[in-house]
């Protein structure tokens, strides 16, 4: 679906993305991991079109991203950002309905299908009881789930999660990633920036490991998620093994220094 060809991007004098080439296909759950400041969020912004690469091209189904209108992109790509603040008392339902805006012409009321979509998304995300609560009164984690529900209501082929589980407890983090994985299984593309490597290991089919703006490694999870990679990129000592209980590769770390 996406093809990145030798893209680079700099914030002022600082190169954030340095000659990255990637191909992201539908039906797959991609995880992006990497240390702080390795360019993960910038990569997501380049995929949504929020930022334009200084050089290289981002192709969406063979067409340059900049040839799409913002509306057209909004119907194809949904983003769940990592932090989200809102100063106005919109209800959760109103925020989720905003995910339908790209599909509804200006000055048109939402159709029955839009309302149904919102209801079903609220149910999937277990937010039905919050539907009428003002979103600015919710806790950070609850707000995050509302924003995620909004992206599901957007009903796009690509779902980009930028540390979407950072504020969530483990139960809700798993629930959110389950829903995202369901989308990937249904043939859509999911790209998730994750800090928690074990969550990434449980859900992602393929892993992109970023380091200093470059792709350090990219491929099927089992090939990429290795002790050597973790040591080279995160400078940590770790053991990686398939865990029978979760059925996934899991990582255990060693303390940095023995006190």
């Amino acid at each position, binding site marked *: 679906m996406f093809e990145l060809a030798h893209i680079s991007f700099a914030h002022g004098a600082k190169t954030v993305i340095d000659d990255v080439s990637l191909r992201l296909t539908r039906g797959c759950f991609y995880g992006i991991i990497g240390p702080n400041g390795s360019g993960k969020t910038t990569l997501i912004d380049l995929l949504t079109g929020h930022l334009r690469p200084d050089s290289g091209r981002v192709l969406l189904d063979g067409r340059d991203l900049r040839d799409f209108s913002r509306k057209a992109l909004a119907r194809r790509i949904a983003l769940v950002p990592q932090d989200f603040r809102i*100063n106005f008392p919109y209800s959760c339902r109103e925020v989720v309905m905003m995910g339908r805006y790209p599909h509804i012409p200006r000055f048109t009321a939402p159709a029955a299908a839009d309302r149904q979509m919102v209801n079903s998304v609220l149910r999937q995300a277990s937010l039905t009881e919050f539907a*009428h609560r003002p979103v600015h009164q919710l806790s950070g984690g609850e707000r995050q789930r509302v924003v995620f529900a909004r992206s599901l209501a957007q009903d796009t082929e690509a779902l980009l999660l930028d540390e979407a589980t950072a504020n969530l407890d483990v139960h809700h983090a798993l629930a959110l990633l389950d829903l995202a994985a369901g989308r990937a299984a249904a043939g859509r593309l999911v790209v998730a920036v994750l800090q928690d490597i074990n969550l990434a290991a449980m859900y992602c089919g393929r892993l992109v490991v970023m380091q200093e703006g470059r792709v350090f490694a990219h491929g099927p999870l089992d090939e990429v998620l290795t002790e050597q990679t973790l040591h080279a990129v995160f400078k940590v000592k770790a053991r990686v093994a398939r865990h029978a209980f979760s059925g996934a590769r899991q990582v255990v770390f060693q303390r940095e220094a023995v006190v």
Partner: protein
Amino acid sequence: MTTEVERSQDGANIHRCFWAMTIGLVLLLLAEVVFATGAGFIRIPFRDVVRIMAAELTGMEHLAAQVEALSRVVVADVRLPRIVTAALVGGGLAVSGAMFQGILLNPLADPYTLGVSAGAAFGASLALWLGITGLGIWSVPLFAFAGATATLAAVIYLTAGSGDFSSSGLILSGIIVAAILSAGVSLVKYLADEQVGIIIFWLMGSFVAKTWAEAGVVAVALAAGLAVALFFSRDLNLLALGARTAGSLGVSPRRVSLVLLVVASLAAAVCVAVSGIIGFVGLLVPHMVRFVTGPDHRRLIPVSALLGACLLLGADTTTRALLPQEVPIGVITALIGGPFFCYMLRRQRLGRE
């Protein structure tokens, strides 16, 4: 599925509430206009007021045949232009305030956040000090408007230089430019011996001796501001999610913010140029409306326009016809609006705990 039923009922409730409020405010505004036209130093019976209005609107002279000629002049040429201007300015300031709060994601923003009032004040005091009268009744308003737009340009230029149109960047630039300009106003006041009274009077705002021409100018500004605000009202909702998210939902945050900031400021600049500085309407009205209609700008903006018109006309009628002596309108709005705002702020705080 009781929840489903509840939910659709709730949606319908908001909808009904919106229409009830819109129709209620339109009726209130009409009643206010009739009452205000009748009230004053010369009392005119409401029956005559309605007859004169009907004759003026339809052109059928026989409708007002029994009315005294003096009443007709008072209503058509003196009171109505002032009343209409007050209502239009109230609507303009309220819409502008709602737009500002939406763009800057700050419920404390108002039409003057970007220094429009300070710029207008400086322009107007220059014109009054130098005694510029070459353009008749338009001399001071034009100077005020020029001051306001120049300030707006300076604030946007300053903010753009610092990278993006972030809310805090705009507010900061607005505060700085306004501070410099109010020093300028103080200087002009100091230098102007005899005209200082006129300058102070202008700064406090007034609808005294407004003409139909001024009402027309404000009407154009309000219509343009309202049209643009309604066109972008859904995009304003998305901006509340933050620029990055709004961008991913099909809005160009930079472009939309810039267009709306300029339109809202120009609408406010026209209001200020015509009537002087009237505070609190633009800050308070969107808050009051949001309480009832919720924050959706598609409902917030039209209802704000109506409530702003009702409130400012009410305040102007109070000072013109009900108080023993006319008090400047800007003083009235601040005296009533300020404490009311404190009350609302406190109530909101308590509600949140």
